[in-house]
């Protein structure tokens, strides 16, 4: 809330910038490191993709900092937001996965990881992890599954989701191309793996054009029952 000092006496004159006195800036434990994450679920595959730019303010810290983290042979998580919280959160998830493996003698399924992540995030309800998570993987029947989260643990299973700085630009595009929304007279064909990968690449190229925090390179993780296949595609570096 800024009040114009000059008021109504001098219309048309620009306000002078002058020193108003010492200003205290409160320390904020959060920083915004940018980045976009995307996940798409198909009939028997799932794709998790992220850009690899790590930025802060007007600077780029790194051009090779991918935001997809492999959790199990069938699950990949994409985390964007504050990089410090992303790292800690993935370390905590890895530790919990190991604990589960040692107590229950089996690997956690994608749905179980999603439910666990929801409780981990909610445990910090009053000092949240500033992370937008999207989990992509295969469920117990081998079908593709995508779970999207908000920073405090609300989650839902989806077919596709975009998160991070360019999410508001990408989500409508995905709604149209994968969900066939807002179109009339269109044949709803199921998504093949090749078409999905091509769509993800195109979508990120568009995001890199219009979002300053997205760019440099794209890391795509394709999860099928054979395993996780990773590809890196270069994007705009400006």
């Amino acid at each position: 809330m800024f009040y114009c000092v000059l008021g109504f006496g001098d219309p048309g004159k620009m306000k002078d910038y002058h020193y108003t006195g010492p200003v205290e800036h409160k320390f904020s434990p959060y920083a915004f490191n940018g980045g976009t994450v995307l996940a798409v679920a198909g009939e028997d595959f799932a794709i998790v993709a992220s850009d690899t730019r790590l930025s802060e303010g007007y600077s780029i810290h790194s051009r090779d900092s991918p935001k997809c983290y492999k959790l199990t042979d069938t699950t990949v998580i994409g985390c964007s937001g504050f990089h410090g919280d992303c790292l800690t959160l993935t370390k905590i998830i890895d530790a919990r996965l190991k604990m589960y493996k040692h107590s229950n003698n089996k690997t956690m399924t994608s749905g179980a990881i999603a439910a666990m992540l929801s409780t981990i995030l909610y445990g910090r309800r009053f000092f949240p992890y500033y992370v937008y998570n999207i989990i992509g993987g295969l469920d117990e029947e081998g079908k593709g599954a995508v779970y999207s989260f908000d920073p405090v643990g609300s989650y839902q299973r989806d077919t596709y989701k975009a998160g991070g700085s360019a999410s508001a630009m990408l989500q409508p595009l995905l709604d149209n191309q994968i969900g066939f929304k807002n179109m009339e007279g269109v044949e709803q064909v199921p998504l093949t793996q090749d078409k999905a990968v091509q769509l993800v690449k195109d979508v990120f190229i568009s995001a890199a054009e219009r979002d300053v925090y997205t760019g440099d390179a794209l890391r795509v993780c394709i999860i099928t029952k054979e395993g996780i296949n990773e590809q890196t595609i270069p994007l705009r570096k400006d």
Partner: protein
Amino acid sequence: MTVFDQLSLDGLRFNLTSEKNSAIPLDFFTPPSANSASFCLPNHSTTVRRPFPLSHGTTTLGFIFQGGVIAAADTRASAGGLVACPAVHKITPIHSHLVVTSSGSGADCMLWERILTREIRLYQLRHRRRLSIRGTAKLLSFMLHPFKGTEVCVALTLCGWDKESGPKLIYVCSDGARLQGDIFSVGSGSPYAYGVLDGGLKWSLSKDEAISLAREAVFRATHRDAYSGNNVDLFHITAQGWSQRKREDLKEEYYRDMEKRSKDRRGKIKRE
């Protein structure tokens, strides 16, 4: 959850596990404050400010009539000005004769419903009978009480059927309110829904009329409220349990309504 806490960093830990209560294990991490000696809830000015908006805003409603209880809700989750998700489930079944409609912050509702389901199931296993709807509401209200004054924002309507006392509708919110009634609507779109419901609700409605009234109320609310929209979910609870109506996209309803209005205005005869 407790082992995880040992991994967590410094900072006050707000532990709700109480031995005599046989555990509602909730460990919340609170940010370190300058005045740590006071150990109060994180609702004063030294709380860390969140840099992102959480999901809020909705229209949910429930009412009792001669054929049971109807619960209806929209499906939009908004975070600030963005529609975070257009297809959220705001009505969740807890057990075969109880559903709960949620409103307020999405994450809070989801997690608290989960905690409530857990506690109800534990009660059933320990006491070999199901807790009544009134008892469920009381339990939920007492579980939420320590968080009064914090940012937790939950407004749930428990809609269910008790074997002993029939249909029940109870509203519980994180401010501490616990109210039993015949008609409730919660959320940013509730004024619009109340208008439609108060105009059309009678005890003697048939099942189809009641469903149609609930649909209409949610539709009018989504039309006028920016934070409600997309689809409408409808549940009907009777002595036999709950049944869910197929989720319906309100966009089609809007176009049907628009066409009807334009035909009325032009005074044309409706073509068959």
